[in-house]
């Protein structure tokens, strides 16, 4: 039997996702109508051998998180547990700390996911590949292609074409190593804990012998990529399964919109019933659109492509929404226009107002191009034009424009805003 572990991080991590993560833990942020981590769980549910899913992280177990886990566990009929780290233990430290729970029931292997990865996970194929490897101690890493320039922003690996072994692995190198990058998704046999255990011991001892290598981190913190996988490269235990399927990280709000678009596209393949269709008396639908059953959308509105309308959202007459996400409880009043934006929970966009952002999509001319991890500001100090975000409970009065701006929750707006962060 198999298990799946999803690393969901904690409040100090994922700060680039603010202000959307100020009110709700990032893993619960809805992408294409469902919480980010729901998509991982759904992918796992398609692998019949996975018998338990464990979420590890250092968020406090809020009501939202607890309820989500209960509901989702019931829905997919698979046990799901949240194991809270006492402090940030790093991507491998948490695994090691909970190794007993992970190995209970003697799984032959277990998947490990990073929650801020958005992907059409090829889990069955990865499992078959893993099983076919001629060794017993095996750790498989999912990888994909990136452009040469962008590869240095990720973990880069060099693959042996014949054995599919990882000959070399380095996280975010300063010079070009390889355009094959780590997807942040793994399949380990239980022996991984020996390798992690050795590093753990070394760190603990170093604390007393002086010369702790993990500068700035606690001695209990172990990073999977740098501390475990890098040394494993070339030892005959680390392997790579390459995929050409869609893969992206969700680090910033802009990448959430991009992930939203791709998950909506995947619904066409796995869940066509989730996509809205044109019908008499209904709004005009263009391309992929998700409308939650509790939302009310006027029949004169035009939605899409790539739009998500959340729980209890009200979309008034003559409204236009394109390439955007509208979160739970928001109201879009008559004739307003929402483009390339995220409208936060319970916010209101007044009549005839325009909420517009600038898409930050990858270069469509370069295959395997990824979204840029752009900085918030340009070199001359001006705000980089990007997706417009309205935090929760933001009231946008009628007839104004919010362009390329970020508005923090509960902010009152009285006038048009362009290229600003409203604190």
């Amino acid at each position, binding site marked *: 039997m198999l298990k799946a572990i999803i690393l969901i991080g904690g409040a100090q991590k994922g700060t680039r996702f603010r202000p959307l993560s100020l009110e709700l833990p990032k893993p619960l942020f809805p992408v294409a109508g469902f919480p980010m981590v729901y998509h991982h769980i759904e992918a796992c549910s398609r692998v019949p051998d996975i018998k338990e899913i464990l979420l590890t992280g250092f968020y406090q177990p809020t009501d939202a998180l607890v309820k989500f886990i209960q509901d989702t566990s019931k829905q997919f009929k698979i046990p799901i547990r949240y194991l809270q780290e006492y402090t940030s233990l790093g991507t491998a430290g948490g695994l090691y700390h909970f190794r007993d729970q992970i190995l209970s029931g003697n799984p032959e292997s277990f998947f490990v996911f990073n929650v801020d990865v958005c992907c059409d996970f090829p889990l069955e194929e990865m499992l078959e590949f893993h099983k076919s490897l001629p060794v017993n101690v095996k750790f498989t890493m999912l990888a994909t292609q990136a452009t040469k320039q962008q590869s240095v922003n990720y973990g880069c690996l060099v693959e042996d074409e014949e054995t599919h072994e990882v000959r070399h692995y380095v996280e975010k190198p300063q010079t070009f190593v390889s355009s094959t990058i780590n997807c942040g998704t793994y399949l380990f046999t239980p022996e991984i804990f020996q390798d992690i255990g050795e590093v753990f011991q070394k760190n603990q001892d170093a604390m007393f012998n002086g010369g702790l290598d993990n500068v700035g981190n606690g001695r209990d913190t172990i990073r999977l990529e740098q501390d475990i996988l890098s040394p494993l490269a070339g030892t005959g235990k680390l392997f790579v399964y390459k995929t050409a399927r869609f893969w992206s990280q969700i680090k910033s709000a802009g990448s959430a919109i991009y992930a939203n678009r791709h998950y909506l596209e995947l619904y066409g393949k796995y869940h066509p019933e989730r996509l809205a269709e044109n019908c008499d008396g209904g709004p005009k639908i263009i391309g992929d659109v998700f409308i939650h059953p509790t939302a009310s959308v006027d029949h004169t509105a035009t939605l899409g492509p790539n739009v998500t309308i959340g729980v209890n959202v009200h979309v008034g007459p003559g409204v236009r929404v394109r390439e955007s996400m509208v979160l739970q409880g928001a109201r879009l009043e008559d*004739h307003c226009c929402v483009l390339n934006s995220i409208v936060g929970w319970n916010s209101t966009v007044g009549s005839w107002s*325009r909420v517009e952002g600038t898409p930050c999509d990858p270069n469509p001319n370069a295959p395997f191009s990824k979204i840029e991890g752009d900085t918030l500001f340009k070199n001359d100090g001006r705000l980089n034009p990007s997706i417009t975000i309205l935090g929760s409970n933001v009231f946008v009065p009628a*007839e104004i*424009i919010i362009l390329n701006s970020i508005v923090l929750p509960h902010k009152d707006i009285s006038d048009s805003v362009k290229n600003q962060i409203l604190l």
Partner: protein
Amino acid sequence: MKALILVGGYGTRLRPLTLNRPKPLVEFGNKPMILHQVEALVEAGVNHIILAVSYLSDMLEQALKAQEQKLNIKITMSHEEEPLGTAGPLALAKKLLKEGNEPFFVLNSDISCDFPFKAMIETHKKNGKEGLIVVTKVEEPSKYGVVIYDKTGRIERFVEKPQEFVSNKINAGLYIFSPAILDRIQLKPTSIEKEVFPNMAKDGELFAFELKGYWMDVGQPKDFLTGMCLYLTHLRSTTPEKLAKGDGIVGNVLVDPSAKIGKNCRIGPNVTIGPDVIVEDGVCIKRSTVLKGTTCKSHSWIESAIIGWKCTIGQWVRMENVSVLGEDVIVKDELYVNGGRILPHKSIGDSVAEPQIIM
């Protein structure tokens, strides 16, 4: 009685509207700018109007032929081969203006106001001097030429764009002169403000007439729109039946009878809608002029814009900040136009986020 209207040049400040049409023919309050002046002059007893022109005079001539017949007056073109400034045209038309030996009006064609022509004739006769200049009070006199005059109305001097406050009365661009002034002007490029008036003032021959009511030089887009607001307010107090009323009409709005306005719109305040204009459902227009034959598609929001003839504004477009569109411009759906000046026959598919000229 005669009048000389200084139409003059290329109207470059009102481009792109004036790229293929002379400025006097651009519709202000649903009537060609020049017609406001012509009709007011005729009502005061003028029966011969001379237009001092240098640009697209053929188009102007044709358009005014019809008016000649309708108003039963004579309209003559005085064509400048080279630009003659603000006084030169009087010398060019000297023969015509001296005929009949009576006072004549001279007007700047960009002026919109409650024309006081009858009162000007009376005051000029009473004064018995060479010239009467209309002056008006403005908030920022330093942008213009300021006029200093005494209690009797006798003008002492002019100060061009004063650096310090001297007066808030400026030259309104409307004059009435006796034919004697023509002896002071030679046929060459001459500025009446700089070269003729100061001498007349020294001779005590120039008097001021204070204008009551609104005044605006509508030669550039920002002032064109401000002038339109003042004009509509003027209509409200004189002939309110001309203004539109009904569902979706807010404040002072002028709508040509042939225009069509859809449901759930909000038009106004201060909007002029020209003939054959189609405004679809859910459109909001404020402080703007929409010229003949344009279509504004549904759910768009337009403020402070001058939209030229036969344009198409797409659905959910947002236009603001004194955007000016020339003839036959197409703005595609869902765009944002902020202070855009768009040349005729241009189709734009990208938003104009910051004020700029789109060629």
